[in-house]
């Protein structure tokens, strides 16, 4: 298993463990070096401690021995034996310790000398107890001499040890100084190196994450064309890289698809627009409205000249309607102009259908509301609808009334007929379309039989003009249908787009 195959957590655990181990080893090294030096220092003075203790006890023992032999003092004898008991473990230690230098050899010599001394002292004591004066005197003299010899030997030994220790101490002090310097250097080096490795490791750990974040930032900025360089790692980062790369690729493909679809749609739309434009141009090229208008006017004059007032009036109304239409749907008209246009239309219908149609206009001719602007060709389509759908199928005469009323906030323009009424479903459709958002408008199934303008178109233009959705109210039953336009007051005239 390669290192970059390990999981992130494993890598972190291993890394921190190794760092900790290195620091522990450095501390252990420092501890061991100092302990070694301390041990050397301790060893230097260990022998002196033993010799000093022995030295003191020998002096005391000789004093006690002398006191016992001269005064027979049992306390002195007891003290002597106490010191003997105390010194014997020391002499055993001195004899059995490993000989590593001449100091140890001399310690062993000292121990043997002490054993000789103790032997002679014991003989003196025995002789004293046996009251053998010559004997204990002789042994005491020998013991005294040997005691002094031992003390001198210890003196020389301690002096030699002190001199050797001085040299040793100098060496140890130098070693301590070097060890301290080395340990400081080691600590600084280890810390520096571990910090360096920490920085390197953290950089290695965060680099792929940083790169991934950079890729994400590019995506955020809308650059979907970036190329995600794959990583060699097969841990969690590798999985993230792989998933991110596939995501980018999918998004890029999806966007391409959307863009392609949009392009195709735009292309189709353009095509359709062009076709319609072509159709319109074709239509326009076929019919010159001014020619038709002039033709109708001439017909009216001919009728007048031929003293045919009915035909003359009929043609004059037709020309009026045509002229009204020629002004364009984008030019608003006043309510009065709409009324005049509706009158002309109703007059034509009256001429065609005679007694089958009666009409009336109810409004205040002095009202300033009549000067209110509204989209051109609003009333005529509604009147036409009232006649076609309301009363054209009646066997009895139908009546169409156009009433203009006024409230504080609205101008109510009602088209009332006594026709068959509008089915409820149609009323619901009309009312729904009246308040639906513009883009929800369904295609108007009734284009308008003569104007080509259906109810939907009228409503749409009214809503756009008056900036309100609720422009129409419908009340209908058998024999009574009223379409009321609710036109808000105070809306300036605007040009319909």
């Amino acid at each position: 298993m390669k290192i970059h195959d390990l999981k992130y957590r494993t890598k972190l655990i291993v890394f921190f463990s190794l760092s900790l181990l290195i620091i522990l080893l450095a501390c252990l090294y420092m501890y061991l070096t100092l302990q070694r030096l301390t041990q050397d220092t301790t060893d230097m003075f260990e022998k002196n401690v033993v010799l000093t203790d022995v030295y003191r006890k020998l002096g005391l023992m000789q004093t006690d021995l002398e006191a016992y032999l001269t005064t027979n003092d049992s306390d002195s004898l007891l003290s002597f034996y106490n010191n003997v008991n105390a010194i014997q473990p020391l002499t055993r230690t001195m004899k059995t310790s490993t000989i590593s230098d001449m100091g140890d050899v001399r310690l062993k010599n000292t121990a043997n000398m002490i054993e000789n001394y103790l032997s002679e002292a014991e003989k003196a004591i025995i002789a004293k107890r046996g009251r053998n004066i010559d004997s204990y005197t002789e042994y005491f003299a020998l013991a005294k001499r040997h005691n002094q010899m031992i003390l001198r030997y210890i003196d020389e030994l301690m002096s030699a040890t002190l001199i050797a220790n001085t040299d040793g101490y100098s060496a140890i002090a130098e070693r301590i100084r070097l060890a301290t310097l080395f340990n400081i250097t080691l600590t600084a080096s280890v810390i520096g190196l571990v910090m360096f490795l920490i920085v390197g490791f953290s950089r290695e750990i965060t680099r792929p994450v940083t790169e991934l974040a950079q890729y994400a930032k590019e995506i955020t900025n809308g650059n979907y064309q970036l190329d995600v360089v794959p990583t060699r790692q097969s841990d969690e980062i590798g999985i993230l890289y792989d998933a991110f790369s596939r995501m980018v690729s999918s998004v890029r493909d999806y966007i391409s698809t959307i863009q392609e679809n949009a392009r195709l749609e735009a292309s189709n739309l353009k095509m359709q627009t062009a076709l319609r434009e072509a159709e319109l141009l074709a239509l326009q090229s076929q019919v010159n409205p001014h020619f038709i208008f002039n033709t109708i006017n001439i017909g009216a004059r001919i009728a007048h000249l031929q003293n045919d007032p009915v035909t003359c009036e009929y043609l004059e109304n037709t020309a009026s309607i045509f002229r009204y239409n020629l002004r364009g749907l984008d030019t608003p008209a006043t309510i009065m102009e709409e009324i005049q246009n509706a009158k002309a239309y109703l007059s034509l219908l009256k001429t065609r259908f005679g007694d089958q149609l009666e009409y009336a206009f109810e409004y205040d001719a002095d009202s300033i509301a009549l000067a209110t602007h509204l989209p051109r060709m609003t009333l005529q389509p509604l009147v036409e609808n009232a006649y076609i759908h309301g009363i054209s199928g009646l066997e009895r005469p139908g009546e169409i009334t156009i009433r203009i009323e006024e409230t504080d906030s609205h101008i109510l323009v009602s088209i009332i007929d006594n026709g068959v009424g509008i089915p409820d479903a149609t009323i619901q459709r009309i009312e729904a379309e009246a308040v639906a958002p513009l883009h929800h408008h369904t295609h108007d199934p009734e284009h308008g039989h003569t104007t080509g303008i259906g109810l939907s178109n009228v409503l749409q233009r009214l809503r756009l003009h008056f900036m309100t959705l609720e422009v129409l109210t419908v009340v209908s039953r058998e024999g009574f249908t009223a379409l009321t336009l609710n036109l808000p007051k105070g809306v300036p005239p605007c040009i319909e787009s």
Partner: protein
Amino acid sequence: MKHIFYAFIGLIVVMTVMILGIYTLDGVPKPKVSENSTEKHVVVLVQNTKDSFWDAFRSGVITEAEKQNILVEFVEVPPFDSDAAALAIERAVLSKVNAIVLQPINGERTSSVLDYARKSGIHILTFENDAFTMEGVPTVGSNSWLVGSTMAKMAISTLGGAEGRMAILINNKESDDTRYKSLKLQGMLEALAPHDEITISGIHNVDNSLLGVDKLTRDILRKDPTINVILCTDDRGTPAVAQAIVDTGVVGSISIIGFGNMEQTMNYIERGVIQATISSDGAAIGKEVITKTATVLSGMSVSESTSTPIYTYTDDNLDDFRKRFPKGDAPEDSQ
């Protein structure tokens, strides 16, 4: 990433090696001892002087002791100080050593304490004093008679058949040891006997004081200006005699045949003040005495006396001496 981990591993390995290295490092430098020391403890009395004979002797002792698995303790005593030597011997006895090796100076003083040591079960060996005889005590060293004879022959050679007026300086170690003095002197006299042209103006005792030797030499020359050769059997006295000759301005007119291989003696030979010196082989003596000690300690008997070579150094073969004992290259002091 792998480089980082390799660096970690490398660092751990280095630290581990360093820690293990702590246990292989030497501690505070300690005096050299026989590494193979066992319960065989031998005390060797040496002079607390720094000259090439004693350096070579110590070296020979240490080398042989390591081979023989013997712990050698050098005890330094002042030259020719019988009280200090007796004290050191008595300490060695009380220390329950296995053997004592020494160069006995005063036969009577030393004999009593050595007898005490032998009664305590301690083996005794002597070196470089064949005049000191004690029953059952082996000795190793140069032949004193041969030394005296060789010195005289060198003096004869120096004179080259011309008439000679000779002064002989014998080292006197505290009191008369006529037997000792006699061996070297006998050798000299026997060598000089056929040469009537050489007369002896006097046999003088030199003490332990270098100033005394200087004064003695001046007195000798003042009293007998005809002296043209001086024989000095004392190694420390030889350079003192040479210096007295230099100070009195009679270099070249008086030949000096000395004893020992002190550095000052060699320098005087190089300068032409001393014509020759007879030297014992300190290393061979040290080696041989330890060999005999080991044999004795193992329970076997050895010969009573073993002679070691002596060397004559003149200006002609001084290089040989330098090769054997380069300047400043004295054997390491085991103490």
